């Protein structure tokens, strides 16, 4: 039986979708809207930095960002296939989409590691 890689991408896609739906709106609301607008008092750089230095938080952020990227990649790939009728370019599209997600994942990992080892 030929083994397909598709379940692998789909697993990343669906777990990313679940995580993103649960956490991203709240995070964006708190970090991107409520704190900058002063609705919530800012915890300050030191406290946030300490937070991000925590191993659990780093693992969480890494999974959240990386899996959300893979969720995007999968969705965008099919949007290009079906929406723009570009199925004949499927190889290229898959490489570009998943490639971006992999690059983003590596960058996220790199940044999070730098943060910890200061």
């Amino acid at each position, binding site marked *: 039986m030929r*083994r397909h890689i598709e379940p692998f991408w789909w697993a990343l896609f669906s777990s990313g979708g679940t995580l993103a739906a649960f956490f991203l709106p709240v995070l964006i609301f708190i970090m991107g809207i409520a704190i900058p607008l002063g609705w919530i008092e800012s915890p300050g750089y030191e406290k946030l930095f300490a937070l991000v230095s925590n191993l659990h938080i780093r693992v969480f952020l890494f999974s959240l960002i990386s899996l959300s990227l893979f969720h995007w990649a999968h969705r965008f790939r*099919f949007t290009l296939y079906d929406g723009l*009728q570009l*199925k004949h370019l499927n190889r290229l599209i898959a490489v570009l989409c998943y490639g971006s997600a992999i690059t983003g994942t590596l960058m996220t990992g790199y940044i999070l590691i730098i943060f910890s080892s200061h």
Partner: protein
Amino acid sequence: MNEQITLEVLRYRPEESSKQIYQSYDVPFKKEWVILDALNYIKDELDGTLSYRWSCRMGVCGSCGMMVNGEPVLSCASFLETFHPGPIRIEPLENFPVVRDLVSEMSDFMEKLERVQPWLIRKDEDPPEGEYLQTPSQLMDYKNYSMCINCMLCYSACPVYGLEPSFLGPAAIALGQRYNLDSRDQGEKIRNAVLSEDDGIWQCTLVGECSAVCPKDVDPAAAIQRLKVSTTVDFFKSFLMPWQNR
């Protein structure tokens, strides 16, 4: 008093013209009439050349599917009243080649149904003494998926099938799942190999229109989604527990 309603029927008669044209018919507007009654009225009273399929006129045979105002429906289960005051557009099922008027070519669908091996597959050749026993809850596991009447409305509604005619499609996949979930069946592995081919479940982008139009609440979208989950679990298992691959 005798109110009429207009049906604009998309006709195709290859011996007369290679083009499809709309033809309008005025039929009596009756509350108890379904679209199929109106078509039968046209056929009997106005124009005997109109072609369409039907048989049971009670939502069981699955042969009377067509597009009514752009939606795939069973014409025997859609009341004229819903579309009052008209006119009502009647077209052959979308995504299928047309043989004549409202009659579509369904051999592609038939071939796909067969491909999922919709029968009980057993490892042991000999049938048991008497029948295979099944509890009511084992029956419930797949009963929903066994309600399909092969009306092809889901294929008409599916944009992926429209773009990619090789896609195995909602009803065929739901039918495969129906046998996968049957406690008497042992053919899941064989069937899943077909269902997860390039033309199978991974083409689906969960638009969900198949389940929305299904007259029997088969919910093919859910069947596909469940298969994606179980195939993905199998995929990872085959790496983590390679000794199980046989």
